[in-house]
């Protein structure tokens, strides 16, 4: 070790860059688990975050699914929020002006039920000042194509990606669905289509049934599983995708502390997002940043990017 780590600042050690965007650290918060950012201002210092992803935005506001929308499971939860959101325009006019006061990267998460809807939302968001990147949620059914989930088909995912890339004024991160036989294929298709980065994983489809009423516990019948329960699947997918793509990966899925974050970086992620843990441990993101810094210092890692994809595959 040449550097004296004790004299290095937090940002020298933890800063990372993805698709030309500079993050002060690799800790982001995941879409749908951080509202539009402001709700957290009372609980944590938003300025410390590497960045955050907004709740999924559609061109028009959406009411979402009827309740019940959530079920707790062992090590996780199912949700079927139905993407209730205020719409891209309200985000730009009502939230962004307040969010710009914070020194953190804002990623607008976007979804649609057709190609046109994606483009419409992106065009609205293009007008907004202070957005660092777009994250495309492709885990929703495409209504025009008979309801197939875009993110489950490499070709559908690729066409959404390239269409969005043509209009997007900012880097495009494509968020992959884990509900597929081969996530590498999906990742490669989206990379070829021009994605600047990938984020994975979104939730796994699950359900839960009340044994007395015999009704599904979610009004929507199925929902998305998230939380520590899914972490081993997420780490595996990040690892697999990192072996085949060249664009940066943001790791998501069950991260609840700095140790989980390190695991994803070693597997191949350049940054991570904290999702469900924000609910039951609202300061989780800050504790993760602190923990990463301490780990780097103790392990003599002078720049956190050294960790990325540093997995050693040789046994013992």
């Amino acid at each position, binding site marked *: 070790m040449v550097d004296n780590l004790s004299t290095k600042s937090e940002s020298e050690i933890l800063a990372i860059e993805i698709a030309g965007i500079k993050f002060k650290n690799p800790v982001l918060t995941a879409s*749908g688990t951080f509202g539009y950012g402001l709700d957290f201002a009372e*609980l944590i210092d938003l300025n410390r975050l590497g960045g955050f992803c907004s*709740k999924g935005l559609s061109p028009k506001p959406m009411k979402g699914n009827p309740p019940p929308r959530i079920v707790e499971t062992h090590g*996780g939860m199912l949700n079927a929020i139905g993407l209730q959101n205020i719409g891209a325009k309200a985000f730009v006019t009502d939230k962004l002006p307040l969010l710009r006061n914070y020194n953190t990267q804002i990623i607008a998460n976007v979804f649609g039920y057709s190609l046109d809807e994606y483009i419409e939302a992106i065009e609205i968001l293009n007008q907004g000042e202070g957005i660092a990147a777009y994250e495309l949620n492709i885990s929703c059914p495409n209504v025009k194509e008979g309801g197939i989930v875009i993110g489950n088909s490499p070709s559908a995912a690729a066409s959404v990606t390239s269409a969005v890339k043509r209009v997007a004024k900012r880097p495009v991160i494509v968020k992959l669905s884990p509900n597929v036989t081969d996530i590498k294929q999906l990742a490669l298709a989206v990379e070829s289509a021009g994605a600047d980065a990938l984020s994975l994983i979104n939730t796994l489809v699950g359900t839960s049934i009340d044994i007395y009423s015999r009704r599904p516990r979610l009004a929507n019948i199925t929902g998305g599983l998230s939380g520590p329960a899914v972490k081993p699947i997420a780490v595996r997918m990040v690892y697999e995708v990192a072996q085949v793509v060249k664009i940066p990966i943001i790791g998501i899925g069950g991260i609840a502390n700095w140790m989980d974050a390190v695991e994803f970086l070693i597997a191949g992620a350049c940054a991570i997002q904290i999702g*469900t843990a*924000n609910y039951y441990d609202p300061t989780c993101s800050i504790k993760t940043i602190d923990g990463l810094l301490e780990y780097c210092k103790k392990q003599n890692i002078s720049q956190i990017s050294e960790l990325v994809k540093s997995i050693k595959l040789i046994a013992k």
Partner: protein
Amino acid sequence: MKEIIAIVQEINLFGNGYCRLKLSVPTILDINAGQFAMLKPARLFEPLLRRAMAFYQVKVINNTTFVDFIFHILGRGTQALAELRPGDQVEFLGPLGKSFSIAPIQKQDQVLRALIVAGGVGTPAVLILAQELCLKRVETYIFLGARSKDDLIGIDDFSLLPAKLTITTDDGSVGEKGFVTESLEKFLEMQEQNNFVVYTCGPEIMMKRTSEIATSFGLKTYASLEARMACGFGVCVGCVVEIQQSNDFSYQRVCVEGPIFEGSEVVW
């Protein structure tokens, strides 16, 4: 809203599987009637999510806030809370949600009367409200319902108040026999002047019926709703209830826009 570690001061099991938990929170909290906290034993791995609990009693001494909760021991979360012992740490987030408003009572030229209808583990959520109303010298009628004698909550504390207290049990083991809403209806029928504001907390079916009865007498009801919550502070949008306003409906968050809603606007 504060995210802080609280310490168990006292914990007692009573009745048909109920638990009373007193915590000390090392800060001054401004807690209002009807608000709640999200609680979880510290460092517990499972269940993951905190549990929503209404404040039953609140007392600030020096820089510490002492808060009491009463809950029914049901599933994994309340079981874990019931196993806490004095000195244990609890992850505390609160106060959360909007409070019961007594403004509707006082806004009029003439002061109205208050009518509180609570059932089961909805009872703890209305003690602070009842105290506040009595303190403000509002004429207050309290109807408490429970399945049986061993399911009655907080009678000692409610009895101390200068309010008219009616108790009902489904099995008649104490108080009037029957549902609390039946007593409520009889009571309202007997009143000369129906100048009440109704507050309710309890099982959904009880609150729905209370709201219907109140509406039929031309009264407004404020109901404190429950919903499964992941976060308790507005970010998951998981705890919504359907609210009908003018000709449109929307899904509103019980943890932020609620837990108190106008009974006539709730799509039960």
